[in-house]
């Protein structure tokens, strides 16, 4: 683990930094945001950022929207929606997907065939379509958003887990476990799952970025979180009408989305390299002798 931390490069550091900033915003939102995100100040509506040379509204660092709500405060609060949605969705879809992948890979036969055909079918339907239909039917809410992701994205985990289990099942230590009388449950969860946890973690990290992006997209379409909860996608939607006169309404939430997604993807890339024995970092992890003798 320490060796892994030592292998963090610039890109990974940037990734961790960005995600840390977003996480801090989400946790500390009530203390660090300058205004109540829903406080309206109609006298100061559509005010440009404070630092803009002419007409900047003092005290509103990133300007205000049509109702005079502070953009910076709404972005800070919006990070909560993004992170909660992202983690809840990835945990839910990961739990379902990994379990099905393990079962399909380990038991094989008709179980695997039915699960993997279902995966093929799910992969053939565009994800955004499933999400749109589900959100339209069930109504916009954070819970529904997480459910939509869980039912549509589990296939990503299943696909990867299935392949990894197939490969691992042929390894002798799994046969050895069977010959020593270790139970199926223990083999599946104590031996197989732990051995494939690395690559799955990579998938999970990349999925986090994806979920944030899609959550913003759905909110933009009015199908994500309800309007009274500040979210980045919702801000884009509200700012769209005024994009000619108030560029700050769409630019800053957009940057927030971009930086967060980039952050998660950088971490994902680094994790992937770490678990890949063909890279330097991966080699030193797979064979600690490499690192210790240097």
């Amino acid at each position, binding site marked *: 683990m320490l060796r892994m931390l030592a292998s963090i490069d610039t890109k990974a550091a940037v990734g961790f930094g960005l995600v840390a900033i977003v996480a801090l915003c989400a946790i500390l939102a009530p203390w660090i945001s300058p205004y109540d995100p829903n406080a309206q100040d109609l006298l100061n509506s559509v005010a440009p950022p404070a630092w803009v040379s002419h007409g900047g509204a003092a005290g509103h660092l990133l300007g205000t929207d049509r109702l005079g709500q502070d953009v910076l405060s709404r972005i800070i609060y919006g990070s909560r929606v993004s992170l909660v949605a992202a983690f809840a969705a990835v945990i839910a879809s990961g739990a379902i997907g990994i379990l099905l992948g393990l079962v399909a890979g380990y038991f094989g036969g008709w179980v695997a065939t039915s699960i993997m055909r279902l995966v093929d079918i799910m992969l053939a339907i565009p994800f955004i379509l499933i999400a749109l239909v589900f959100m339209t039917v069930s109504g916009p809410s954070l819970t529904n958003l997480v459910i939509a992701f869980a039912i549509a994205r589990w296939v990503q985990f299943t696909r990867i887990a299935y392949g990894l289990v197939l490969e691992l099942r042929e*390894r*002798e*230590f799994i*046969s*050895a*476990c*069977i*010959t*020593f*009388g*270790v*139970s199926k449950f*223990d083999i599946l969860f*104590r*031996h197989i799952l*732990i*051995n494939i946890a690395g690559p799955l973690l990579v998938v999970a990290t990349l999925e986090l970025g994806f979920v944030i992006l899609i959550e913003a997209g759905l909110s933009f379409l009015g199908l994500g979180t309800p309007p009274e909860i500040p979210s980045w996608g919702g801000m884009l939607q509200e700012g769209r009408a005024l994009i000619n006169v108030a560029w700050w309404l769409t630019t800053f939430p957009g940057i927030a989305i971009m930086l967060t997604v980039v952050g998660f993807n950088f971490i994902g890339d680094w994790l992937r390299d770490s678990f890949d024995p063909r890279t330097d970092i991966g080699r030193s992890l*797979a*064979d*600690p*002798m490499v690192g210790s003798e240097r």
Partner: protein
Amino acid sequence: MTALLEIRDLKVSFVHGKRSRPALDGISLSVDRGRTLGIVGESGCGKSLTALSIMQLLPSPPARIDGGEITLTLDGSSRDLLKIARKEMRTVRGREIAMIFQDPMTSLDPVYSIGEQIAEVLMTHEGLSRPDALDRAVKLLRDVGISSPEQRVRQYPHELSGGMRQRAMIAIALACKPAILIADEPTTALDVTIQAQVLAVMRGMQRSLGTALLLITHDMGVIAEMADDVLVMYLGRIVERGPAAQVLEQPAHPYTQGLIASLPSLDMPHGERLIPIQGTVPSLAAIPTGCRFHTRCPHVMDVCRREEPAMREAAAAHDAACWLIGRAP
């Protein structure tokens, strides 16, 4: 007295669609407490398949057991391993029969320390608590000749050398004092010097625990070193069986003779060539009629091509399936 483990007329075939190919054709063997039975043969002759059948680890499909009995007799009560429930089989595995594999690099789980892997078996079968199991693990590592076991117990497989890993495997396999240990090419992946050490460890453990050893190898040297009895297999059949010393010194079957002649030895005159067995092992899809070995046999006769020879006595307790036996030379 019944033998500890007795296999009678075991038949296994591989099924592909509607075709089936016999892989084991009437294998019978028995092994007793404290004895070592060596099984020799080229790759693909069914050695490992026999071991996997005993453990009920056959990849199925495609493998299918067509008949036979595998009887384990412990404390006077006999069970046919082919008939008992899966759950019962799990208590047999590890506790009564354990197995070690060829490649110690891949037969240990890379994410757990050696101690944890030994402890897992002890916790599963003997219901030991974790600290007790770890204490026992240290003792077991010392028993298999690993120095400073207190430190080694915390190390991971990649931190150990091949020989160490195979010793650790032996420690795991013998943790619950099984009645039978199946070793499938246990030293093939090791250096020659390490081989000797690992064999010595296995023999020492066998003496102190009274374990029966089923040693699968293609190395006649290992057989000479370890086995009491030996069984030579060719294309899913037993072609020769007898006391190891007798079989090695006076092999009755041309196949066994060929295996021994193809071994290099130190006292061979310089420049002399090794004598390989002609040809290659036929595939299971095209098993020759008559004697299975006739396509490669230097002494082939007409009868060999027509009829399969039965096991005949070549000497006391030494049988071989060859038409030559009993003929005037």
